[in-house]
């Protein structure tokens, strides 16, 4: 059986093990009781009827959480704001105490013998809410008379952040020959991994360990958050995640339900399992994006960009959870000048609370948003001042000979060749011949547009001191690899095996990968910031060298010659006129008594962020009769440094781009004025489906980075950063011909059609 990825066999035959697929003897089932109101006091919570319902074993409320000494959900790093003011934070309690602040906020957990019994029992709860006015946009929540979500946080403002040089930017605008400004909205989204989140905790009394089955992006990150929330020693928790059905940043840390099943299992001495419904996820899983970026650009008489200025409004939702704060501050500032040499940069942002689901990292976490905003602004300036958008970019790109390049606010782009990447994208998309195609569409009554986006983003710097990896040989020619980073579809098992196979000259088929195995005491970063391949992957590249080093004397002994005479090549050690394959050597020297294999070793790398970048070109056609837009062609050229698996990289680009198309055309979380969630299912939250792009060509132009041993740059999130601007610029290009626009995402048929009506 010849399969492309190691992961594939179990997944295509229905033998994957996602969290809800686990069933343990005597397991109990949990169901959440959630707030029906966006903003209310919890005046009465009576669970007596729930407790008495058939099959119910326990009901957990905030009192149980407090009695167990649990903390709140991690609220993310403490970000220092403008003027050195500390961030004001409101962490999400595991269960609501005196107030609820978003529809879907967890209030109680019902545990029963069956899932349907728990669900039926939950309906018997008696809650009295003291309804309060709700505010669901950052813009409204910062108004002086807005309802206050948190008593100790005035004006619903968690943080005012700034970066760059305000005076230099003001000077540049004062002296500018021409300026442009644009408001760019990146709407609130639901990441919507296809696997409904689930968790199960099984307290093992003998070992005094609670085994927790849950999706993760890496066992260490989940363990850290869960041990903090449950006030447990990390050693008392064991995290099990076999297959994870997508995460996109949302499932790296524990949720209230994860902590609650731990509590329940410890108290009841039985496994407790919880599986979300999709409707619960729309309310109760962190949302993504939800930013408004007000950008201004200044050009001199020769059309050099002299400054960019940003005034941003960030919607955190009702509480600070995990990455929300980072998105609206650091992630917007690091690359706020984009791929351009801009001498003066300044941003300020205001992070606001709203009566909505908390926002955290969703594929890109602010970086697609700023890339999108910059490229929209550049195109807008070109349109307003009658400049060619390609020429304007060409003139202002950081030139290929200027690297390493330090931006005006201190970010160092280590390498790149933006001109070459853009030229390749323009050529592949036949950009220069667009006008003829546009006329052809026009003859058929359609509006055709072409647009490009040049993004650059900072990939994950990683919080762990190093990325450590280990290996174990067995007696059968097999090699097992260990690291921390947990997959959710990226193909870790395949990439890492390929790196080892390529380096050692052996077949990848006998090489396995285990993420976060409890038998291994290693540190490293979980999946996040697109760094698994260049982080852990670089460590695996180093492991290749270590394995050869460690094995050399062992091979020498087998070959009966001095170690200095042993050479290695093509998977084989040679010396003294003899040779032995690496895996044959491993078989030979495998201890019979089960003690550690002598060739086992570890390696590591220390590497921070790098700067993937690329040029994406979208060509689309709008039907003015219906407002429906067809994406005719999508061309992406990405500089991802050295590529290990072109197929896996293309898969990541496809996935990221289409998530971007989802945001551009379809997706939006909608609340009414009372904070009721209107987009609560896939009926109302429109998702991309097959056939969304007629023609997709994903290509690359590698400028290898010296910042890690593979020379690779992070690909996972880059698709979003390229698609939002290229699609949006193509839309505006098409609409401009009709004399209308710009418009905000999502470019639904209704919105596009209505906009075109204004053209008269």
């Amino acid at each position: 059986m010849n399969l492309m990825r190691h992961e594939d066999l179990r997944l295509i035959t229905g033998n994957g093990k996602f969290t809800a697929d686990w069933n343990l003897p005597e397991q109990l089932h949990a169901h959440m009781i959630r707030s029906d109101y966006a903003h209310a006091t919890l005046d009465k919570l009576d669970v007596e009827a729930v407790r008495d319902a058939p099959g119910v074993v326990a009901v957990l409320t905030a009192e149980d959480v407090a009695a167990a000494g649990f903390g709140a959900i991690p609220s993310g790093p403490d970000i220092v704001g403008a003027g050195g003011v500390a961030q004001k934070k409101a962490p999400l309690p595991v269960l609501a105490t005196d107030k609820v602040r978003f529809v879907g906020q967890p209030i109680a957990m019902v545990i029963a013998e069956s899932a349907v019994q728990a669900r039926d029992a939950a309906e018997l709860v008696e809650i009295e809410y003291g309804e309060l006015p709700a505010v669901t946009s950052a813009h409204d929540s910062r108004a002086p008379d807005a309802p206050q979500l948190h008593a100790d946080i005035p004006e619903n403002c968690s943080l005012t952040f700034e970066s760059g040089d305000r005076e230099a930017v003001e000077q540049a605008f004062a002296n500018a020959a021409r300026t442009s400004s644009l408001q760019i909205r990146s709407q609130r989204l639901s990441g919507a991994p296809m696997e409904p989140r689930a968790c199960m905790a099984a307290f093992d009394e003998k070992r005094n360990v609670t085994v927790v089955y849950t999706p993760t992006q890496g066992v260490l990150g989940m363990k850290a958050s869960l041990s903090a929330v449950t006030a447990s020693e990390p050693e008392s928790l064991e995290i099990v995640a076999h297959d994870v059905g997508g995460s996109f940043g949302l499932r790296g840390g524990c949720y209230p339900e994860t902590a609650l099943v731990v509590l329940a299992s410890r108290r009841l001495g039985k496994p407790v399992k919880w599986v979300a419904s999709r409707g619960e996820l729309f309310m109760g899983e962190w949302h993504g994006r939800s930013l408004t970026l007000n950008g201004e650009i200044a050009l001199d008489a020769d059309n050099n960009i002299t400054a960019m200025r940003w005034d941003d409004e960030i919607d955190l939702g009702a509480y600070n959870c995990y990455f929300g704060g980072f998105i609206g501050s650091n992630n917007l500032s690091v690359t706020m000048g984009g791929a351009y040499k801009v001498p003066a940069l300044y941003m300020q942002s205001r992070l606001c609370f709203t009566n909505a689901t908390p926002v955290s990292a969703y594929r890109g976490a602010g970086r697609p948003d700023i890339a999108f905003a910059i490229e929209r602004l550049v195109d807008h300036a070109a349109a307003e001042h009658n400049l060619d958008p390609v020429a304007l970019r060409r003139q202002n790109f950081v030139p290929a000979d200027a690297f390493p390049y330090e931006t005006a606010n201190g970010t160092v782009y280590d390498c790149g060749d933006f001109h070459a990447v853009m030229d390749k994208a323009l050529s592949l998309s036949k950009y220069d011949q667009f006008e003829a195609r546009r006329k052809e569409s026009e003859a058929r009554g359609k509006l055709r547009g072409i647009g490009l986006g040049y993004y650059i983003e900072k990939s994950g710097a990683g919080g762990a001191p190093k990325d450590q990896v280990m290996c174990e040989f067995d007696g059968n020619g097999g090699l097992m690899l260990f690291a921390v980073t947990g997959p959710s579809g990226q193909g870790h098992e395949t990439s890492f095996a390929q790196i080892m196979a390529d380096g050692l000259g052996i077949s990848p088929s006998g090489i396995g990968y285990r993420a976060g195995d409890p038998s291994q005491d290693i540190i490293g970063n979980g999946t996040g910031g697109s760094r698994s391949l260049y982080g852990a992957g670089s460590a695996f590249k180093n492991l290749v060298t270590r394995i050869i080093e460690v094995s050399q004397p062992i091979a020498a002994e087998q070959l009966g010659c001095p170690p200095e005479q042993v050479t290695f090549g093509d998977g084989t050690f040679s010396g003294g006129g003899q040779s032995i394959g690496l895996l044959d050597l491993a078989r030979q020297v495998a201890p019979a008594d089960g003690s550690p294999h002598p060739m086992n070793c570890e390696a590591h790398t220390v590497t921070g962020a790098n700067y993937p970048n690329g040029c994406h070109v979208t060509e689309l056609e709008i039907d003015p009769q219906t407002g429906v837009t067809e994406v005719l062609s999508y061309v992406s050229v990405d500089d991802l440094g050295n590529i290990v698996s072109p197929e896996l990289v293309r898969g990541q680009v496809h996935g990221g781009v289409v998530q971007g198309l989802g945001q551009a055309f379809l997706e939006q979380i909608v609340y009414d004025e009372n904070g009721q969630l209107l987009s609560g299912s896939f009926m109302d939250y429109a998702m991309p489906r097959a056939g969304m792009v007629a023609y997709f060509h994903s290509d690359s132009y590698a400028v290898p980075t010296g910042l890690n041993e593979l020379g690779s740059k992070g690909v996972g999130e880059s698709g979003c950063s390229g698609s939002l601007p290229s699609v949006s610029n193509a839309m505006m290009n098409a609409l401009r011909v009709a004399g209308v626009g710009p418009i905000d995402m999502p470019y639904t048929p209704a919105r596009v059609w209505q906009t075109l009506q204004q053209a008269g």
Partner: protein
Amino acid sequence: MSNNTRTVNLTVNGNATEIQVEDRTLLADALRDSLGLTGTHVGCDTSQCGCCTVHLDGTAVKSCSMLAVQADGSDITTIEGLAPADGELHAVQQAFSDCHGLQCGFCTPGMIMATVDLLRRHPSPSDEQIKAGLAGNICRCTGYVNIERAVKAAAQALEGAQ
């Protein structure tokens, strides 16, 4: 609140079997919980996503959109029963792997079952037929590009096998 249970007779993946379920139990849940066939996935609660797609009496159905009791007497194939024999794969399964048409794998069982049915109805599907045939299946990871390639590759492989 109904908790009547009744006997439902099914043939699943070639095996005649009898389960006891409440009237309100969805077929998807019966397959997963009563029969332990967890390859069929539940991805949503409004029958949009297609992760639960199985074959019932030869036709693809979303097993979340019917009750187990409605399937009494039916012949069901789930993803676990698609491969022709041990150590072999159905052409659609092979094509999905070859074309990298899966990443996390959660939508994959339903996507494969829907594809098998699509190719039964349209052995040489056009782009439009593929788009329509998979309109009931949502994938968040792949962006569909490689899934569409997999459908075409499987179509060719199946035609070649005739």
